[in-house]
Structures are given as C-alpha cells and as structure tokens.
C-alpha cells in the first residue's frame, strides 16, 4: 500500500484527507500535527475566546475518527525536515517516516510587524487553541487589552476579549477597519458598530514599541503618543509556512506554488491550504481551501481531472450582531458602476460593484442576509440586466419556498463548510434528513459561523418530507430575532440592559412591543441583576399599579392564600375612605381591589395599608388561591392554606412571561379551582398532585398532571422547578397553557421533575438568585427609583390669574 504522509492537522489538510478517503483509494496514512489537539474548527476560535463555545465544541474530527479510518496520528510532533530524494520526513522527535506521496498542509503563522519589545510577556498572537488559552488566562474583568490590527481576526479577538470583561482598544495602521475587504464608507459603518459594542478603535496608528519591564505595560506610537495596556494581541496578518517546501526544493513564491491540479513542482509532493499560492493568490479563508482539497483529492488518487481555477475572495466577520460581508472587488474604477444603499440610523451599508452588467464585488455592513445571493451572482457571472431593478432588494416572494427554489443546485449555502444546495437536497433524499440537527451531522452545513441556518431551514422546509416547521416568530421589527435567539444573544453577549440589546441588535429605538419583552428577558436571564430601565416598562411596572380607563390606578395588596385578618380588613377599609377610593371590590383571586387611586396617592396608600404588592398589575406572580383544607373543612386531606401561603411566599415579587395564577386545594373536590390555574397543587390522601397549564379565560383548559409526590415539601419543590423552567423557556406573553401546548408536557416533565438532580438544582438555584434580589415593589414608596416617579410635577411659576 502507498504511504501518504500529511504534514498539518488543520482544517485544509484534514478536509482534503476526508475527500481522499471518499475516493476509496488505498493509502497508509500518517498525519503530523504540531499542536497537541485533534483537528478543530479554527474559524470558531473567536467564539471560544468569547466564551460562547468550549474547546471541545469546536472539534471537527475526534480521535475515534482517526482510529476508525486507520490513520496514524502523530500529535505534538513538528516535521523539521523533508528529504525529497530519500522521500522521508523527519520529526522534531527524531522519527523518520517514508512517503510515497507527501501532502503539505502547513498553514500559516501570525505575521509579527517590526515592533520593538514584542518579546515581552502578555503579548499574544491569535492563531490556535494554545494562543486562545494563553489569552484567556490573562483576560479578566477590567484588564486593559489592546489588539494591534483591525482586520477580521483582530476584530474577532477584540470582541472576544471584551466579552470576557476586558477594556479593549483596537489599533489599526490604515485609516479603514478591515481595509482588505472594505471601502472607507463600509469601514466607517463597521467602526460605528464596533464602537457601539464598547470596543474603542484607533485608526492611522503605527505602533513603534511595546513598553514595559518584562510584562507589557503599554504601546508607543510613532508620533510618540502612548497607550496603556496590560495585554496585547497582535493580529496584523498571516504568512504562509513555506519552510518545508523550500527544503524539499519546491518552487516557492509567497506560498508553495501549485497548478490548477494542486500539484507542486515535485510530482510526489502536493500542497493545500493557507501555505499554497495558486495563480499568484494565497487564500486565508476556508471555502476556497475546501475547494482546493476536493481538487487535490482527485489528483492524488489518480482521478486527476478536476481543476481549481481560483476563487473570488469573500470574507464574513463573525461577531454576533455586526454583520459584515465582502466579496470580490470593493473599490470602483472608471469601468465599474456602483449601486449603493445607506441607512445611517440603522447602520446599514450596501455597495454593489457592477462591471459589464456582471457583479464584480459586494460590500455589506449591518445586513448581510443577501450575501449568498450575491456570491452566487459573482461566481456564476450572472447577467444583471434583467435584475437591475432588484439588485439591492429581492422581489418579495409570497411563496416561502420560492427563495430557495430560485437557487441553483451549485450555489453554496454554507460557505464555512462548503456545502451546496445540491448536497443538502441529496442528504435529505438519500440520508432521510428531516431536522436541522440531522442536517448538521450529515453534511456539516451550518456548523461553522451559523449564518446560513435560515437558508438551511428554508431548504428543509421546502424539500424534506418529514420536516416539522418550527414556529419561529421574531419579537418585532425593532429587534428582528426570535425570543429564543434573543435569550441566547443576551446571555452570550452579556447584555444587561434593554437599551444595549436595542443598540447592538436592533434599531436603537424599540417600541411598546419589544421594550417590555426585553425588560423581562434581561431580568430573567441575569436573575434580577440586570440594569433595570423603567422607561422600557409599561406604566403599570413603573408605578406598580394597574392603570384604569380614566388614568387612575387600582391597588391590590397581597393577601397570601386569600387568608386575611380583621385588623388587615380594617386598615383596608380606612385607606379606602381616607383616599376616597371609588370602588372596593372582591376579586376572583380571593383578594381586594381598591379602584380609582390617583398616581400621586399611591405611595401613601401603600404605606397606610402596610401590605406588600399583590402584583395584580404585572406579568408576575398573582396569587395562590386556596381552600380551607384540613384546618376547617371536614373533607380536607391536606393543609391547603399553609401550603398555599408558603408557595406564594416562595414565588412572590418575581416577574414571569405572562401573569401566573396559582392554586392549592386540600382535596380532589377542588374548591380552589386549581385545575384551571397555571400551576396548582391538588391534595390527596397521603400525596399531592402537581398540575400545570390550566386555563379559564377565553378558552377553558384542564391542567395537565406534572407529577404526584408524597409530601408538601416535594410538591412545593416540583412547582418551583416548573415555575423557573417556565420563566426561562417561555416566550414573553406566553401563558403557561400556551407554553405547554407548544413544548409538550412530556418534554417539560423530562426537563423539570424528571430531570437529573443537578439540572433541577440549577433551576432552583437560579430561582433563589432571583428571589434574593427581588423585593416588594411597593417599598419604592420609601426609596423611589426616580424623584418624580409618583410625583405630580407643579410648574415653578404660579399662573397669573
């Protein structure tokens, strides 16, 4: 069997090897990897840095893959010599390995500009997992970090460090960020976006020296100005690793020169990836490298024929919420026409460069949703004459399947993994792919940056026979993401306030739909430690009372379990008279409603009542309705009042996706109407049933049984676990019964009461965390959140009569 030696365990080399294996060629394969880690997705290092993924998450091929395919893997061994006459390679451990065919996939290393003092400690490059781990060790809250280089990698590093809490500045030599891909206007839009994320940008700065004594302490620019820095990341470009090629006597220019078949000047040596120069171009992006790998696999397995003829350079910035895409030419000349769209308020910039009615290049900042379409136009040299009116916006399609139906099979859907529409359709038909998860596993589509997931979904929907449509609805057009996405965004991007979410992921403005929803999301995700912004709350949540049709408010004090006392009732009566309350009414929830209170009177009313807020005005915990249970009722079998009062105490003062009404009843006669409550406990002889998802509103729904447990503490705990799960998983304004219908009670049981103990504890811990900071909202009567929260402002000037 022929010996195939692969030098380089990176994305390009292994992707090529995967292709070689597909050709069922007989090779004895040995892979050398300088890093000690199995093959991983280098593109996603920035998300490891940002804490969105772990090192394990980005593994492409685990050890088992090498074993299963009989590949000899030599990790941590650097190949230091190639002998093209003896046909051997020598590792830095002294081992000599013979080859019949040698594949060089040595990649590239970070370019270190000539700066004095780069040897100081806490100066990093950003190329591999080791670099990433080293940076993470130093990236702590408040650390002043400087990234030299405002290209793709530099910006991704900057955002990653910033998400780790560092105070980050990007220093860039040219006057435009991503100047290899963007014109100056595009660069300005990008800068604006990046700065809105909280990363400082310094352009036109040439770094002369890194200052410090051992550890880096700052930068000195060539104009003498200095900048403080506790860590520095150099991301000033890459250089192909050509040393082994040079030793082997290969023809080298900037990279190892290959022809269209990916052959080098030595018939037994091949090269692929970032170390390669093809027709004068060196590629640093993954899509063309995969294409090279496919071609090389054919050449190397005696199926020579396919050719690599070059690739339109295309780049996508992988910073969540900062969409940047650039492909082909981006600077116009006399022979090209430019079609431009700008919306400064929304931060959207699109520029199309048209030459002879063909698309020669595109720049998209702020909205890169159409990048695949443009890429395909460039690749296929599509005639734009007939499309001239719709260059910037596709014609609206009523038929949801039409968008993907328009795509030719050869169009690349996933640029990271190089998966075409045709490949996805083949997977659907031949492998029975029906879900996104199956598609990812089968084709790797959408496992890179994930920006093609909408297209993949649409394809599945259009083609897969068993596709189940996810009810994906964006929150509103101010922040066009689903609530599920938003939860992920808020968590991963560490957004603590509504305005931050709107600024970075929305139109910066917001409306009455999204603001209260986002208020809820940041509250529940950060367990109440978010930055509260009352301007984003509905009036009820600003003044903790329910606005009425005449602009007055209603006041419902908390009467836990509906259990009150003569003294409390007397106080309520006194307050009603003192403040001339227009109406006193017993509510359906075993409470008392005081209607028609003026805003300015609210603090005094609450003070005189001396009772906590009943949250009757908000999407929160309303009440726990109880029956008299064993204490008085001759049929009672459980102490419903005690359990109900305790349940209310444990959950009160928390916000929920929608109002949450609870009940506890002491026997199956169900006097507290628990089976039509959101969450309820039904007492039975020697046990409790915990029921969820009842409704008695526009439609009536009998609650589902969640679980039956033996004692009261277990029942309370089951209710709390479910309660927190609902808080975290339901969409804002989704009642428990709708949530259950959407998710399914079986799944909910699995993830709450039947979940592993650790998962249940985690839910309870987050509930507890929220409870610790939650307080009775009516205490704002003593410490208002703003001096005029309840006050009726009086003009400074008395009016002249």
């Amino acid at each position, binding site marked *: 069997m022929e010996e195939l030696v692969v030098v380089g365990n990176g994305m390009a080399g292994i992707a090529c090897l995967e292709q070689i294996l597909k050709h069922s060629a007989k090779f004895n394969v040995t892979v050398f990897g300088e890093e000690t880690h199995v093959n991983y997705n280098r593109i996603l290092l920035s998300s490891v840095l940002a804490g969105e993924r772990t090192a394990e998450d980005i593994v492409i091929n685990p050890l088992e893959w090498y074993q299963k395919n009989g590949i000899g893997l030599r990790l941590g061994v650097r190949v230091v010599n190639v002998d093209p006459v003896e046909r051997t390679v020598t590792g830095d451990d002294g081992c000599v390995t013979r080859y019949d065919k040698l594949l060089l996939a040595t990649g590239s290393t970070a370019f270190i500009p000539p700066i004095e003092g780069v040897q100081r400690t806490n100066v990093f490059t950003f190329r591999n997992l080791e670099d990433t781990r080293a940076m993470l060790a130093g990236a702590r809250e408040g650390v002043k970090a400087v990234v030299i280089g405002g290209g793709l990698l530099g910006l991704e590093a900057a955002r990653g460090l910033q998400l780790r809490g560092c105070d980050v500045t990007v220093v860039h030599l040219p006057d435009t960020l991503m100047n290899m891909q963007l014109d100056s206007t595009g660069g300005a839009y990008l800068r604006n976006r990046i700065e809105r994320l909280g990363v400082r940008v310094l352009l036109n700065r040439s770094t002369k020296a890194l200052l410090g004594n051992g550890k880096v302490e700052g930068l000195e620019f060539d104009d003498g100005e200095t900048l403080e820095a506790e860590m520095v990341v150099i991301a000033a470009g890459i250089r192909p690793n050509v040393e082994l090629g040079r030793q082997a006597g290969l023809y080298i220019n900037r990279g190892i020169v290959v022809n269209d078949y990916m052959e080098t000047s030595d018939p037994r040596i091949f090269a692929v990836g970032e170390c390669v120069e093809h027709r004068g171009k060196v590629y640093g992006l993954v899509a063309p490298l995969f294409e090279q790998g496919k071609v090389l696999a054919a050449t190397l397995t005696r199926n020579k024929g396919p050719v690599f003829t070059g690739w339109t350079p295309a780049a996508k910035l992988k910073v969540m919420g900062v969409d940047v895409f650039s492909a082909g030419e981006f600077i116009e000349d006399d022979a090209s026409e430019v079609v431009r769209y700008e919306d400064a308020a929304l931060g959207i910039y699109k520029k199309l460069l048209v030459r002879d009615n063909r698309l020669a290049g595109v720049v998209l900042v702020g909205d890169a949703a159409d990048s695949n379409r443009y890429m395909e136009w460039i690749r296929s040299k599509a005639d734009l004459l007939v499309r001239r009116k719709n260059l910037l916006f596709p014609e609206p399609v009523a038929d949801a399947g039409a968008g993907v139906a328009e795509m030719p099979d050869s169009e690349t859907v996933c640029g990271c993994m190089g998966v075409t529409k045709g490949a996805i359709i083949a997977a659907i038909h031949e492998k029975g792919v029906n879900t996104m998860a199956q598609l990812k596993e089968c084709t790797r589509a959408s496992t890179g940056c994930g920006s093609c997931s909408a297209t993949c979904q649409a394809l599945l929907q259009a083609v897969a026979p068993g596709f189940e449509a996810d009810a994906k609805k964006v929150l509103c057009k101010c922040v066009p993401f689903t609530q599920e996405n938003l939860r992920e965004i808020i968590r991963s991007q560490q957004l603590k306030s509504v305005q931050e979410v709107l600024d970075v992921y929305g139109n910066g403005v917001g409306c009455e739909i999204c603001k209260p929803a986002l208020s809820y999301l940041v509250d529940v995700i950060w367990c109440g430690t978010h930055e509260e912004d*009352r301007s984003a709350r509905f009036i009820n949540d600003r003044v903790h009372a329910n606005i009425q049709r005449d602009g007055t408010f209603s006041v419902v004090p908390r009467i836990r379990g509906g259990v009150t006392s003569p003294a409390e009732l007397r106080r309520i009566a006194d307050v009603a008279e003192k403040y001339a309350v227009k109406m006193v009414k017993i509510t359906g929830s075993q409470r008392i409603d005081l209607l028609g209170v003026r805003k300015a009177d609210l603090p005094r009313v609450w003070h005189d009542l001396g009772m906590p807020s009943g949250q009757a005005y908000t999407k929160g915990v309303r009440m726990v309705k109880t029956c008299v249970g064993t204490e008085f009722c001759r049929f009672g079998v459980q102490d419903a009042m005690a359990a109900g009062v305790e349940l209310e105490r444990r959950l009160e003062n928390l916000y929920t996706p929608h109002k949450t009404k609870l009940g506890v009843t002491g026997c199956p006669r169900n006097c507290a109407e628990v089976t039509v409550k959101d969450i309820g406990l039904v007492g039975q002889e020697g046990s409790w049933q915990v029921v969820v998802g009842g409704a008695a509103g526009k439609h009536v729904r009998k609650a589902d049984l969640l679980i039956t447990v033996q004692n009261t503490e277990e029942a309370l705990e089951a209710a709390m676990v479910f309660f927190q799960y609902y808080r975290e998983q339901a969409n804002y304004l989704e009642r428990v019964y709708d949530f259950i219908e959407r998710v399914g009670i079986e799944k909910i049981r699995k993830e709450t009461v039947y979940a592993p103990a650790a998962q249940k504890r985690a839910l309870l811990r987050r509930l507890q965390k929220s409870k610790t900071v939650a307080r009775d909202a009516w205490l704002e009567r003593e410490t208002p959140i703003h*001096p005029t929260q309840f006050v009726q*402002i009086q003009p400074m*000037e008395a*009016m002249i009569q």
Partner: protein
Amino acid sequence: MRWVRVTETKNIPLREGRAVQIGSEEVAIFNLGDRYLAVSNSCPHRGGPLADGIVSGSTVICPLHAWKVCLDSGDVEKPEVCVKVDTYPVSVEDGVLLVQISDEEEIAA
C-alpha cells in the same frame, strides 16, 4: 403666547414623560435624550395619559389602547386617523424647562 418656567430638566427621566398642569392645559413633557418635547397629555382616542406611555423614538404609545402619537408634530401615526394632539414649544434655560402656552390657556386658569 408666553414661556412658562415649568420644572428642572432632571425631573423628567430619560425616555419617559411627566404630566404638568399649566393653566387649563395638562401638558405631557418627554425627555428624548437629545431634546425635550411637549404635547397635550390627552390621547385623542379616549383621553389616555400620554405622559405614562412608552417612548419609541420620537413617538409615544398611549398606555390605554396603544395609539401612537408623534411628539414632534402631534399627529396620530397609529391607527391611521387624521387627528392630532396639540404640541407646545419647549426650551431649556439653565437646566430649567420652559413651555410656551397661549394666552387663552393662561387666562382660562
């Protein structure tokens, strides 16, 4: 027409409104961050207190039935009806908000 000194700017929180009785008119004053705007504090629909609404850009959404009113022009933007609320010029002097009202409103007080 005359300018009335109303209140210190700090009394109107960012992106919120506050109601002030000036003469016969109840005026809702909003803090939009870069400027202050004032309209009549009564939604043309059912008289809802606009000062209690959620601010969306330079519009406010009435808390009662979500009518959307432009704070610059006073036009109702949602639903599509041709009604408007009165607007009042606002200026800031030494951290104090001044609202310009007509003499009739003053006299009616």
